[in-house]
Every structure is written in C-alpha cells, then in structure tokens.
C-alpha cells in the first residue's frame, strides 16, 4: 500500500509536468489551430539560457548565476519574448493559410532553434545545477516526496489556479476563451485577433520558461533534444483530453503522466522497456472510444 501511494505521488508529479506542457500547446491550438512543436524548443532554450553560450563543456552560469527570483524572471521573460518573436515572424504571416502550413512552419522553427543552440552552445550535453537544495526529499506522514516532485505539483497547481482566474475573471482572458471557442465569431464581436494570439503565445512562453526551470532542477542536464519527449507526450495529452479544450489538456497531461509511471512501476521487468508502447496503446484505445477526446468543446463539434 505504501508502495502504491508512493507510486501515485510519482505519477501525479510527472502528470503535473505534462499537464503544464499540454496546457501551453492546448492554448495556442485553441486560438490558432496550430500545433506548436516549437514548444519543445522554448523549453530547451529556456534551460540553455541558464548558461553562457559557449562550446565549452563546462560553461559558466548566465541566468543560472543570478539570485533565484531574478533567475526565474530572466528565464521566463526571455522565453516569453522568444515565443512572441516566433509568433510574429513565423506564424502570424501564415495565419490564413492551411493548418498544415502552420504545422510545417512550427517544425521549421523547431529545427531552427535547435540549430541555433548547436551553433552557440555546441552539440554536447551540459550539466548545470540549480536549486539543488530543492531536490531533497520531504517526509510527509512517512511518505517520501521528492523535493522537485513537491515543487512541480505546487507550481502546477498555482499556475493552473492563476490561469483559471485569468481566463475567467479578466476581460482579455474571456476574449481568449471566446477566441478559442470560435475564432471568427469572436473577431466579429470585436476581439482583436493579434492581441489574443499574442497573449496565448506569451502564456505558452511563460509556461515554457517555468517548465524548463522545473526540468533542470530535476535533471541538472542540458541537451538539445530535452524538450522533445515531454512535448510529444503533451501533444498526446491534448489530443486525448479533447483538442482545443484547456481542462482537457490538463486532464490528458495527468492521464499520460500517471499511465507512464504506473506502467513503469507495475509491469514485469522484461516488459518495462516497452512501457511507452503500453502508454500509447491505451491512448489509442481512449481515442477509439472517444475520437473527439475526453472533454469536447463546442468548437470541436461538427456543425450541421
């Protein structure tokens, strides 16, 4: 039983991380019908911004050397600016084209950013330690909760609450939800397209910056491909949650995170290497039963 609860904590912590990434992807998809694969690279760039760009194997700190409040601010700000720039340069001019074109553009942005990192930082993975004090396990009623897991769950919860308040209580938040529901209708009613889309990207950038910090605190490792797997998982999360639905994205994030940890914990040893096959089989089954995803928005429904 203790083992089960321990695994559950591990699962929820990983789910929180995926939920945050899924939320960023879901938000941008909602307003723009763009699956932004460059979200992976926002995460990577955020992590790399902790160190000075150099090909050296042991780089000195850049943002990573600042006091923690300033470090968080600088990383989050840079990724937000990066997200806004990519929106302005790579996505806004293509807004009225096919969604496929947008998708291709997001792949291009992703490869561009990866190459940029190789150019400035070299291709070798690097190590950096921030927030080592936060990684120590905390004992709660005899249960071991990893410091980072605790942090991830707390941060995810706070961000979700903040986002819900923003979306429900502020005027721009309501416009954003309206745009996510039915973009053309929202525009007809006076919602400024450029503004809501920029806001969506800014939020995805803020989320990207925060996730990158959580990631680095946990792994202490920088690698050009570090953002890809969480983003792929998050993409599946948005699909099973119901694409375009923000609560769905969060739910999906928790589902894939929890599935992945439970399969790792309970599969027999020789089956564990095929854990991801298990996760994605269940994803396919969910989609077969509910092709629209678990939470269906009115925008996703077929209109007659």
């Amino acid at each position: 039983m203790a083992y089960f609860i321990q695994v559950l904590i591990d699962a929820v912590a990983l789910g929180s991380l995926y939920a945050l990434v899924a939320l960023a992807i879901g938000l941008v998809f909602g307003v723009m019908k763009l699956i932004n694969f460059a979200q992976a690279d926002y995460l990577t760039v955020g992590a790399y911004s902790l160190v000075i760009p150099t090909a050296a194997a042991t780089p000195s700190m850049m943002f990573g050397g600042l006091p923690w409040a300033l470090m968080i601010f600088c990383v989050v700000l840079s990724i937000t600016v990066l997200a806004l720039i990519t929106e302005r340069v790579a996505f806004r001019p293509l807004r009225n084209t096919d969604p496929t074109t947008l998708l291709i553009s997001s792949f291009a942005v992703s490869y561009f950013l990866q190459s940029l990192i190789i150019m400035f930082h070299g291709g070798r993975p690097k190590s950096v330690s921030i927030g080592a004090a936060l990684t120590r396990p905390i004992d709660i009623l005899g249960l071991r909760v990893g410091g980072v897991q605790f942090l991830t769950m707390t941060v995810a919860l706070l961000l979700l609450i903040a986002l819900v308040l923003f979306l429900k209580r502020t005027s721009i938040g309501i416009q954003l939800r309206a745009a996510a529901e039915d973009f053309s209708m929202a525009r007809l009613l006076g919602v400024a397209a450029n503004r809501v889309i920029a806001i969506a990207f800014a939020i995805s950038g803020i989320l990207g910056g925060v996730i990158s910090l959580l990631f680095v605190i946990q792994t202490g490792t920088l690698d050009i491909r570090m953002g890809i797997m969480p983003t792929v998982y998050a993409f599946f999360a948005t699909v099973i949650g119901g694409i375009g639905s923000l609560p769905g994205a969060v739910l999906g994030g928790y589902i894939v995170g929890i599935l992945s940890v439970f399969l790792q914990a309970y599969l027999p040893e020789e089956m564990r290497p095929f854990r991801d096959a298990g996760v994605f089989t269940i994803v396919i089954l969910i989609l077969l039963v509910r092709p629209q995803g678990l939470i269906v928005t009115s925008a996703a429904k077929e209109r007659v």
Partner: protein
Amino acid sequence: MKTFGHLICAGLAFALSNSSALAQDAKEPIKVGFATALSGWLAAYDEEPHKAAVMKIEEINKAGGVLGRQIEYKVLDTKTDLTLTGSVASELVDWGANMLVVPPDYDYGSPAALVAQNAGLIAISTGASDPKMGAQGVGPNVFTAHSASQISGITSAEYAYDKMGARTAYMLEDVSIEATKAACAGFIAAWEKKGGKLLGRDTFQKEDASIAAQVTRIKGLETPPDMMFLCATMPQGPAAVRQLRAANIDMPIFADTGMGGDFWLGGVPGLKDFYVPAIMSIKGDPRPEIQKFLAAYKARWGTLPVSEFSVLGYCTIEQWTAAVEKAQSTDTEAVVAVMNQFKDQPTTCGPTSYTPEMHIQVDRPLLVSKVVDGSFEAVEIFRNSFAPDFKLLFRVSQ
C-alpha cells in the same frame, strides 16, 4: 595479330613493373584518409580523437615516417550524415588512401568502413564499441580501437566484487541505446560468474522526464544493495544520478565508460562514491605514456582534450603504423594479417589484441576512477579476467 597482342602484353607488363619500381624509389608518401565528423552532433566526439590522430601522424613524420615514407593525410567532413559519410569515404578511396580512419560510432562510422572494406582497404574506427565494427559485421578489414561496451560492465562487476567486497547489486539500465544495453549485459554476465547476488534491475529511457518510479522501486528494497551498476550515457546518465542521489540512494554507483569526464559533475554537486572504468584520466593518470600523450596534445593543440576518448585516435594511427612497419608493406592483406596477430601489442591506450575473428578489445585494462570533490580521480588500473564470448558480445539468445 597474335604478335601484336603479345607485344601489348609485354609492353603493359614492362610499364607496370617499371611504375611500381619508380614509386618505391621516389618514396611516395603513405596516404591516410580521415572520414571525420567535424560538424553535427558527432563532432563533439570525433574532433578530439581526430586531432590526436593527426598529432601522431606529425610525430611519426618528424621521426622519419613509416618504412622510410612520410604519411600524408586528407580529412573530409562527414557532417554526421549517413549518406555523406559513405560518399566522403569513396572520395578518399579515389584520392588513393592506403587506409581510412572512420568515426567513433558504429551507426555513423560503418558507412565509411563499408566503403573501405569494399575497396580492399583497412578501416579503423577510433571509438566504436560495437563488435559489428569488425570481421563479423562490416568485414574482415575493419577494426575498432576501442573496447567492447560489455567491458565496462565486466570491469565494474569484477572490481566491485574483488576489490570492494560488494556481494549484492542493483542494475539500472537505459534501454534506448545499444551500447548501454551491452554494458549491462556484460555486467550481469560477470556478476553472475563471480557469484554476486542481483537484488533487482530496472530500466529507463532516454528523455524520460523523471525516473521517480525507478527510485521508488529501489527505495522499496528490503535491504539496500552493496552497489549499483548504472548503464547510461550522456545526457540521461547525469540526470539519473542527480535524481538517485537526491532521493538519498547512497550506495556506490558504477557507471558506463561514457560517463567519465568531469564536465557533467557540476550537475550533481557533492557527488561521491561514484565510479567509472575509464580509458584514461585527463588529470592524474598514473601511466607515464598517457601523461606524455596529454602533454603533447596540449603543446600541439593549445588545450588539454576534454574527452578520454581522444587518446583512441592516437592509438588508431599507432597500431596501424606498427602493423605496417612489421608487414613492411601497406598492402591491406599483409597489414590485416599482422594486426590479427596482435597479442598485447603495447600502445599508448594499453595492450592491444586482435584475432582474425575479434576486431575489438575485450580485455584491455581500464582505469577505475572515482569522483572526489567534484572531479574524477584515478584509483587503479584494472584488467578484467572474464573475457566475453561471441554470444555475449553480439548479445544473441540472451
């Protein structure tokens, strides 16, 4: 007509014999072709062995060359691209290379090695740890200067059992990379052979955001194991170590050769009881020949190498020229025959052995190193006594 044909034959024969005689007289240079990843992700692993190899060539030329002939070399960038790797190798063959030095990776080196094999030339990979870079894989003219991946696992098992008195172990395996899986296979085989007890094993995957479930399983063991073997490499290896230590999993950890090098230790502050069987130590290697190599490298390139794999490039040229010297020829067949007879041939990397079937090192001593105060320190040179058979090397029926 018949006489005319005879005349042509005779003329041709004369011309041929004459030209080869001329070549010998003029002391034509020996040509070494480098198909090297100077850009792309593999460059981080190929540049230093390449520089070391170039340095060895320069040293040899300074000392009068091989067979009294100077060595000329040509470098072409494979750009870490599989197709390009094959075509630059062909270009080097056309240039007239006597042998090819190919990238330190089976996947990204084999296309070049195959071109050499088909052209009847020797190819040596500076660092492939897969035995397929050899007689049973790419072909009988292909060698690798490195040890098989299994050796770091075998060395860890034997060292922990013999020298540290470990009797129980746990194994954590990154299953997304063949080389790390091979290291784990080597560990299991040697650990069982020693009679050690394996308390459990678990897997993780490259780019796993968290290994919390694996940590929980280890924490759930009734008795903590005496040691852990972690087969992982960059970048997921350091990430795993950070998460293990953060969860207060404190037993000695042995890891794969790929995790040697101080550059990642900043990611796990205060790390201790962490061991790696390494090829060499950049600072404080007890072997004078390695110290000499490092000093020469620094003098030639202005800075010490970052990676322990750099020295393998040096030994690639060292062993090939030793074989050429012994064969008194650059002829592939003659040189391969000599290399196949190498039995503890002394090189800077340590005793080097090949057989006609085994074109990779299976019992070259490794330098067991330990992390002390944020950097690796040499503990001792250790040579494994259990040599993997072909079944273990190729991981068949396991």
